[in-house]
């Protein structure tokens, strides 16, 4: 069964802390995504990666960075967390060509991050 797992379901951090959100997929997918989900705004793409060490900015990359050292793992990094980064973060993976949307994205359960 296809699986995308995220390291934490809930996380509470303080302003200014460095935060790591981890995502692992077991489907050997080339493409992985990080979204944030906010009420009334739907999902917005932060970054995506189409191969190891390759990344593309999404619509809201400011304040975030990513790392993909292994195919199955994609990390989202908040270098200095701020209160406006309090949100639900969703990871997804997709098979197929990097710049094609044909295949389904598979999502993890999400990490609800609160920054105090």
């Amino acid at each position, binding site marked *: 069964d296809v699986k995308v797992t995220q390291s934490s379901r809930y996380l509470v951090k303080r302003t200014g802390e460095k935060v790591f959100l981890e995502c692992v997929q077991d489907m050997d997918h080339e493409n992985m995504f990080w979204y944030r989900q906010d009420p009334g705004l*739907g*999902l917005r793409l932060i970054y995506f990666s*189409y191969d190891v060490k390759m990344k593309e900015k999404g619509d809201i990359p400011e304040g975030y960075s990513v790392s993909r050292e292994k195919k199955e793992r994609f990390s989202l990094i908040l270098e200095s967390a701020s209160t406006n980064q309090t949100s639900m973060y*969703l990871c997804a993976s997709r098979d197929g060509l990097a*710049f*094609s*949307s044909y295949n389904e*994205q598979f999502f993890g359960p999400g990490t609800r991050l609160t920054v105090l």
Partner: protein
Amino acid sequence: AQSVTQPDIHITVSEGASLELRCNYSYGATPYLFWYVQSPGQGLQLLLKYFSGDTLVQGIKGFEAEFKRSQSSFNLRKPSVHWSDAAEYFCAVAASGNTGKLIFGQGTTLQVKP
């Protein structure tokens, strides 16, 4: 710029009643369209997608959607709602220019009354 609009933030229907969730998109060419569902505490799951061909698309869990180019719509329907359908539903369109990205609507929360 491309966009997806789901006009209804919340919808409440009685169990057994029919359901229609609205989705409107802005896109110049023929869009790739998707409906995802997010059950409480879960990630998103694909219900169905439209790329070309028959404008009425069948999905999982008894859902269907109809692509109407003239109305720029891709509404999701189900003839008889079950309590387990209570969830948040997202419409999405593939971004133009072969970017591999999806643009999501704001989401519609469905509540099912017994």
